[in-house]
């Protein structure tokens, strides 16, 4: 694995007091999240990946033959595909032979915290998960290493037919439903990392919301890596049936080690006609985790999919949540916030495909880099030939806190017809000159006015986040807005 980067020289850039107060963001990671438990596992696969490991995972889970075949085929795709050469030079350092692909910490997924193994429960207590569940969630899943150790959903929701369970249980108890949707949005040979996940997937969430049901409080999944050189490969599917609504929130942390870990998830969302899915991620892995994730959604007629994607941690993140707008008047939205500190590269972004007429989309991508960190926005906006009357707006904004850091933007726009309205804006000052002018005429400075406009804009999203995450997000957004006008 890569050597420790050389320390970044002291910055000479002058910061506003607000910016300076945020320079220490993330510096208490080791204390808050970076601890680890003693390893007391039922099974820990030796390092490396081969057919035997894949078969063992399938056997452990007593899976049907079609899933075992699916995994083995995916393994062939993974082995046949070269490591991607785009994105980040850090990708070349990923050592697939130096990873434990499966670690089992507990016999089964429990429905009571009391039944979760003591060490594991202590970790989640320390991270505040049981408390959060009591206070503001409709359901919780907690994954520790390869598998989900705790899962619970509000009884009222269960009565309404909502399914919220871990993916392994879903395969056992709702096999037909899983089979109908599994890998239809992200096929195993989509890319090398999707193939890897397809071969060794374990854990993750399965959500089904019946027609017309609104899940008012969020469902949350929390992912924890504990061991060094661990690979975590959860698989999540969310199906929102006609006219339903669900907000799913995920968070993740890991201990700080010198050996690198790999997190490679696959997430598939299906929003049926008139449904709405909001998927919020607060990614806070330790700086020795490669986070290489494939997330994709389809939105059918009049449906809405929103990705709120906040990347604070990890060594390297490559993640571009996408929405395929497949039905008329579907709407897609991505709010992406990336924060790159010392030794980090956040290659984040979004993809929106307008495949039907009169569809609309927004991408708002914000990034902050400091102490030699690098953040990139990589995006695709595609409007198909028949998708007339479509509207899209892309706004990218980057802030560098010192002269050692780096930010790049790689936007791709493909338009297949003339009757569309597409806007790409690179600075906040263009968000609304009239709004700025109005506020400034009431005595606000340009910077205050800009901050107010953007805060007002993102407030509906931030206020829906669980409190502990909203605070972190707000700190970031505050920072992000400083000095970005003009």
């Amino acid at each position, binding site marked *: 694995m890569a050597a420790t980067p050389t320390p970044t020289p002291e910055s000479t850039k002058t910061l506003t007091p607000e910016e300076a107060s945020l320079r220490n963001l993330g510096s208490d990671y080791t204390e808050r999240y970076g601890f680890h438990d003693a390893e007391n596992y039922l099974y820990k696969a030796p390092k490396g990946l081969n057919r035997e490991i894949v078969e063992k995972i399938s056997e452990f889970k007593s899976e049907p033959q079609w899933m075992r075949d699916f995994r083995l085929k995916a393994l062939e*795709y993974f082995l046949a595909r070269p490591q991607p050469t785009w994105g980040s030079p850090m990708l070349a350092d990923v050592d697939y032979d130096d990873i434990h692909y499966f670690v089992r910490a507990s016999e089964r997924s429990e429905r009571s915290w009391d039944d979760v193994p003591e060490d594991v429960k202590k970790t989640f207590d320390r991270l505040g998960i049981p408390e959060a569940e009591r206070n503001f969630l409709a359901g919780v899943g907690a994954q520790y290493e390869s598998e989900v150790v705790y899962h619970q959903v509000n009884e009222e929701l269960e009565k309404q037919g909502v399914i919220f369970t871990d993916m392994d249980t879903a395969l056992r108890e709702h096999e037909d439903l899983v089979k109908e949707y599994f*890998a*239809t*949005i*992200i*096929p*195993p*040979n*989509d*890319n090398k990392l*999707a193939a890897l996940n397809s071969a060794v997937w374990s854990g993750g969430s399965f959500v089904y919301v019946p027609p017309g049901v609104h899940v008012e409080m969020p469902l949350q999944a929390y992912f924890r890596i504990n061991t060094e050189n661990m690979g975590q490969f959860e698989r999540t599917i969310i199906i929102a049936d006609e006219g339903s609504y669900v907000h799913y929130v995920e968070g993740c942390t890991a201990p700080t080690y010198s050996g690198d870990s790999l997190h490679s998830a696959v997430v598939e969302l299906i929003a049926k006609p008139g449904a709405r899915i909001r998927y919020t991620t607060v990614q806070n892995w330790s700086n020795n985790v490669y986070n290489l994730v494939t997330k*994709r959604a*389809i939105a059918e007629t009049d449906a809405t999919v929103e990705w709120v994607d906040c990347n604070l941690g990890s060594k390297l993140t490559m993640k571009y949540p996408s929405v*395929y707008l*497949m039905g008329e008047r579907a709407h897609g939205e991505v709010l992406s916030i990336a924060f790159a500190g010392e030794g980090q590269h956040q290659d984040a972004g979004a993809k929106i*495909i307008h*495949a039907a007429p009169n569809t609309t989309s927004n991408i708002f991508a914000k990034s902050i880099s400091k102490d030699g960190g690098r953040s990139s926005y990589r995006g695709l906006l595609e409007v*198909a030939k028949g998708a007339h009357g479509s509207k899209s707006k892309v706004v990218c904004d980057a802030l560098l806190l010192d002269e050692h850091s780096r930010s790049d933007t790689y936007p791709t726009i493909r338009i297949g017809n003339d009757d569309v309205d597409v806007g790409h804006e690179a600075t906040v000052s263009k968000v609304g000159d009239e709004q700025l002018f109005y506020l400034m005429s009431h005595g606000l400075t340009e910077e205050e006015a800009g901050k107010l406009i953007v805060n007002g804009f993102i407030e509906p999203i931030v206020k829906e986040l669980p409190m502990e995450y909203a605070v972190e997000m707000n700190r970031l957004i505050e920072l992000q807005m400083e000095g970005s006008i003009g």
Partner: protein
Amino acid sequence: MRVVEWDELEIAVVNCAGTLYAIEDRCSHDDGPLAEGVLYEDDCTIECPRHGSLFDLRTGAPKTLPAYEPIETFPVRIDGDLIKLEVE
């Protein structure tokens, strides 16, 4: 499986469990060839070798993303020892 050319069209003729189908040999996602992909005879689909989209040989419709537009299909007729394709 065999690829034939007509004007600028490349057409893949595929034998799925004894029935012949003809499809445009071009993935609607990235315009690359499909004929090199895996054929699944149980549901008559072909898998794009580059990004894994599955296409229904009978209708040309994609059954998985990332492709979202159908590929063209052509009627096939068997005339003695000859396989004839109808191309407009």
